[in-house]
Each structure stands twice: as C-alpha cells, then as structure tokens.
C-alpha cells in the first residue's frame, strides 16, 4: 500500500494524504514538474487532463482542462505561490470557464505538496489540501468525475437520507 497516512480535520476542512514511493525525490518531483507526466495522473482515465500552461514558478498560473467522455471540458488553474525544487510546491487551485478565466466567485483550495527522502531510494510525498468552504470541496469533487456537477448536489441528499435512516458508523479506511 502506497498511502501511508491520511489525516482529516473536518472542522478545519483539511485533508492530508501521505504516500511513500520506491523512487528518488527527483523522480517524484518530475511527476509535478513535467506537464506530460502530470497529465498521466491528474485526471482519471475517463477525464484525462491537458496542461496548456505550466511553469512552476512563484506568481505564475498553471492552466489545464480535462476532457470528459461526452466531450465536456472543465477548465482549472493553479496559482503558484511558492516553489522549492525538488521538495515543495504551494498553490491555490481553482476552476475556470472555457476561456481559462478563473471563476473568482468560486472558493478555491490551497494545496501544499512536500517531497522528502525517507531512505535510500524511498521518498515520501505529502499533500495537504485546505478548503475555504464545503462548496469549494464540492466544486473540486464534481470536477473531473463522470457524475459531474449535479451529482454533488444529489450526494448531499443521499448523505442526509443516510444520516436520518441509520446510525451506521463508518470504519476508517486505511
């Protein structure tokens, strides 16, 4: 199992995922720094991502879109805040319209990526995502999933139905 730790703080709307890879720090950095590699993992196979602008430098904006099975193309961007190759990236991720213009009224999440060597040839990557609101989280989740936007709304309904119909406790997946 690659994922070594998952920490959730619902009241802070924060999720931290840690994973370890049998690869060098430089190799993991390339997954982020090389847009052609980024495209291979950012979107699911049903919604592959295309990065049209990618310069990991503070103050620059990374732009991408995803292409869905029906030809729909949700756009997204990162505003790069801090970069320290090959160890650290801090960026704000958001959604954009078809021309790549950010939806400024839409809350955005802040993502902090950390890459460090834990042993020879073994590297830990941590990804901390902080959301300003539940809406922002829904936005991220709805983007690049086959269910799309409307599903995010019906998910809330499903959660509520489940909450009221049962007191089922949920096991922590690890």
């Amino acid at each position, binding site marked *: 199992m*690659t*994922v070594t730790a*998952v920490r*959730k703080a*619902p*009241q*802070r*709307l924060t*999720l931290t*995922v840690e*994973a370890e*890879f*049998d*690869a060098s720090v430089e*190799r*993991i950095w390339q*997954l982020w720094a090389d847009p052609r*590699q980024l495209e*291979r*993992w*950012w979107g*699911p196979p049903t919604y592959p991502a295309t990065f049209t602008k990618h310069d990991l430098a503070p103050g620059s904006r990374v732009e991408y879109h995803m292409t869905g099975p029906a030809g729909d193309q949700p756009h997204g961007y990162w505003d790069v805040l801090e970069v320290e190759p090959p160890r650290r990236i801090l960026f704000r991720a958001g959604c954009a319209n078809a021309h790549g213009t950010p939806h400024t009224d839409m*809350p955005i999440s802040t993502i902090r990526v950390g890459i460090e060597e834990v042993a020879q040839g073994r590297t830990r*990557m941590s*990804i901390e*995502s902080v959301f*300003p*609101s*539940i*809406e922002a*989280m*829904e936005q*991220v*989740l709805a983007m690049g999933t086959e269910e799309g936007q409307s599903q995010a709304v019906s*998910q*809330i*309904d499903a*959660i*509520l139905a489940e*909450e*009221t119909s049962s007191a089922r406790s*949920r096991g922590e*997946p690890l």
Partner: protein
Amino acid sequence: MVVSVQIAPPDFDPVFAALADHTRRDIVRRAISAEEGVLELASHYPMSFAAVQKHVAVLERAGLITKQRIGRRKVVRTNPEALLVARRLLDQYEELWRARIDRMNELIAETAGAIDTVETKESKR
C-alpha cells in the same frame, strides 16, 4: 432547542457560509468539548463580545452549534451531524487523491521498467 434530529433536509447554504469564516471554524472546534459559554468563548478572540455573539448566532442558525443548559450555565455545543457532512466530503476527496497516487505509482513503474530495458540493452552490448 434540539436540532440534531432532523427528518427534512436542512438548508445547507448557511452551513457553507458559516464554515467559510476562520473565527467561526475555531468556535466550532472549541465547542466540540461543550465546556464554554459565549462569554468564555469570547475571551479567546481579539474582538468584542458582541462580535463573537454574532458569530455564535450565525453558527446556531446554520445548525452547527446549539446552546445547552447545564445547571445554571448555558454552554455552546457543536452539532456533530453538521460536521459529518464535511467529513463525508473529505472522504470523497481522499478517494480522489488515492486514485491519483495509484496512477503516479503506475507511471513510476512504467518508466522504471523502460530504464531497466535500456540498461539491459546497453549492458548486452
């Protein structure tokens, strides 16, 4: 007032708005232990009692907290059900990153294999 048992779906917009503010998220965090009243809560923040009272009112309207009477005191208590919604969304977000990490692994294995092949070819020369 009991808001934890709700059959009809509550209006979620106030929940979104309430959790978007840093001070209010902090109040929600503190009120999990349900030990403090509004006055005690107010002592944690560099703002007026009235301002904190307003934040508490927003959270109460959103169903995120309730005021509970314990003896002669009234304490502020977080409503865990409201937080559960945020929790479920975090679960989904976790799945999104797990899938991405799986794809990263596949990519690493693929390129490592390609390098091995090149090295094998070169060593055979």
